[in-house]
């Protein structure tokens, strides 16, 4: 009796959750149909967005989102994994907690606070730093990337730490027993064993960077149609840009409301964002259980 009751309740809970997900995705798709019908694939590949002319190409925003997230991860990965190595390999118990807690606390700071600090401090600092490159202002993709790096640090650090702690102590002891130094043990045993978990940590950090809105909104410049002359040239990072989230957070959302095509274009950005983040999360999820299986 109890068994069937719990089963029924868990089925119901799952069904409700799945309903939420399905209705969310389907309403995003339905609402963005007008723009998909008009623009077709060039909604994704178009480099021009002029809402008043009815031209909607989201590529510069996809570029902006990916660039700021890549910068964020490039900065947060060595720091986060480095800090995780320290806490997982060299510290134990209370001392580990003393290092880990403040870093995890970073995750609890509301993102608007990061945004304000970004406007007040980081923006001006980057502006001075970039002076040799004659930036137009302190609002650049780089500024947003650096700010995001701080914000995704706790995600990367905590998950990396979990992945490293998942490597069995017996393996470490065996490495020591075979005469490996601590450094060799980390490089030859811990890191390779934890690699899938570390990759998952980085992917989830990337996903978090992609989705962050307010902090990016305040420092990215929100300049539309910024497409670099050379795709991989870092020169464009020193210029302002627009990300999917900064567009969604802007006042254009209010202007668009009521006009099916324009509104569809805005909702479509949400759909793109959802697809990107969901893809990354699924990818990370494939690796995460692998990492745990070793534990």
């Amino acid at each position, binding site marked *: 009796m109890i068994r069937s009751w719990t089963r029924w309740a868990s089925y119901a809970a799952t069904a409700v959750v799945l309903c939420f997900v399905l209705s969310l995705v389907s309403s995003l798709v339905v609402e963005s149909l007008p723009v998909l019908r008009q623009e077709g694939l060039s909604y994704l590949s178009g480099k021009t967005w*002029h*809402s*008043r*002319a009815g031209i909607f190409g989201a590529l510069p925003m996809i570029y902006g989102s990916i660039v700021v997230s890549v910068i964020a991860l490039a900065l947060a990965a060595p720091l986060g994994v480095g800090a995780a190595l320290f806490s997982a390999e060299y510290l134990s118990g209370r001392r580990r907690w003393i290092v880990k807690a403040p870093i*995890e606390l970073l*995750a*609890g*700071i*509301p*993102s608007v606070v990061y945004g304000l600090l970004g*406007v007040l401090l980081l*923006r*001006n600092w980057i*502006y001075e730093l970039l002076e040799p490159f*004659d930036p*137009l*202002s*302190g*609002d650049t993709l780089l500024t947003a990337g650096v700010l995001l790096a701080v914000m995704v640090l*706790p*995600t990367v650090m905590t998950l990396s730490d979990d992945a490293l702690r998942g490597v069995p102590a017996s393996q470490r002891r065996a490495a020591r027993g075979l005469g490996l130094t601590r450094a060799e043990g980390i490089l030859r045993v811990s890191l390779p064993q934890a690699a899938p978990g570390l990759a998952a940590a980085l992917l989830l950090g990337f996903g*978090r960077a992609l989705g962050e809105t307010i902090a990016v909104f*305040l420092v990215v*410049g*929100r*300049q*539309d*149609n*910024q497409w670099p002359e050379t795709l991989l040239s870092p020169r464009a990072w020193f210029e*302002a840009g627009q990300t999917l989230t900064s567009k969604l957070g*802007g*006042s*254009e*959302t*209010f*202007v668009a*409301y*009521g006009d099916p095509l324009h509104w569809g274009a805005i909702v479509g950005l949400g759909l793109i964002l959802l697809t990107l983040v969901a893809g990354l999360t699924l990818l990370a999820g494939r690796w995460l259980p692998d990492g745990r299986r070793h534990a």
Partner: protein
Amino acid sequence: MRRSSVGALVLFLCATTAPAALRVNGSTTVNPVISQAAEILRREASIEIQVDTVGGSSGGIAALGDGRAEIAMSSRPLSRRDRERFPEVDFRAVRIGTDALALVVSGDVWNGGVRCLSRGQARGLYEGRIRNWRELGGPDQRIAFFNKEPGRGTWEVFAGWLYGDADSAPLVSLLEVGSNEEARSKVGSTRGAITQLSAAWADGETTFPLSICEDDGDEVAPTRASILAGDYPLARALYVVTDGPAEGAARRLIDLVLSERGQVIVERHGYMALTAPVQAGGAHP
């Protein structure tokens, strides 16, 4: 990540457990006046009033149209498009004061000698044909134009001045700013910067309002005297908007702003009270 979502949930619950009797939404230019009046009503009449500026004037009008707010704050007149978008809403705009929109520049531009722009020069700046302050007799510095987001009342008034109406403005992609606070802070900390901003918000230390050069060579500064005389072309009215005649708490708030006490608040924030003998010039009566 989990902690931040728990925090957000707590904030959300706090925000929803105390429902506001009156929701006001819109322009950041009108906001200081309304916020202060709301504070008085909160203290003296215990009316809970929530004031939000997230989408600017158009955001406020859309919120009113959707029933997400009882009062919209607007720094531009209602347009035909507003009424077309919400045909079932009976928009009633009440003028609460007068403001002057100015082109506001950073200290290095001001100290470099740029004091005045003509309408043609303003167009050149907006369209990106003029790219360096040197071309306008200023310092050798690239021009960083912080454009107010379309949908903001300030942008609509500016575009109306340059191009007749906002829909005729050319399509440009400039750096964008939203609230007045953001515009002022970014212009003040960037070399060669300019934005469209209420003249009352320029602090005279890091941000400076430019005059407008008339065709006959006269310079008109956004001063009280020139605005009251109807000479300054970018003077504009500030409004609160309701759906039908205001009632209850909304009525009390609007009455307060229109009272002598409320008009003192309007003046204190650098705008002109209704009692001042105003003849706002330009395209906006």
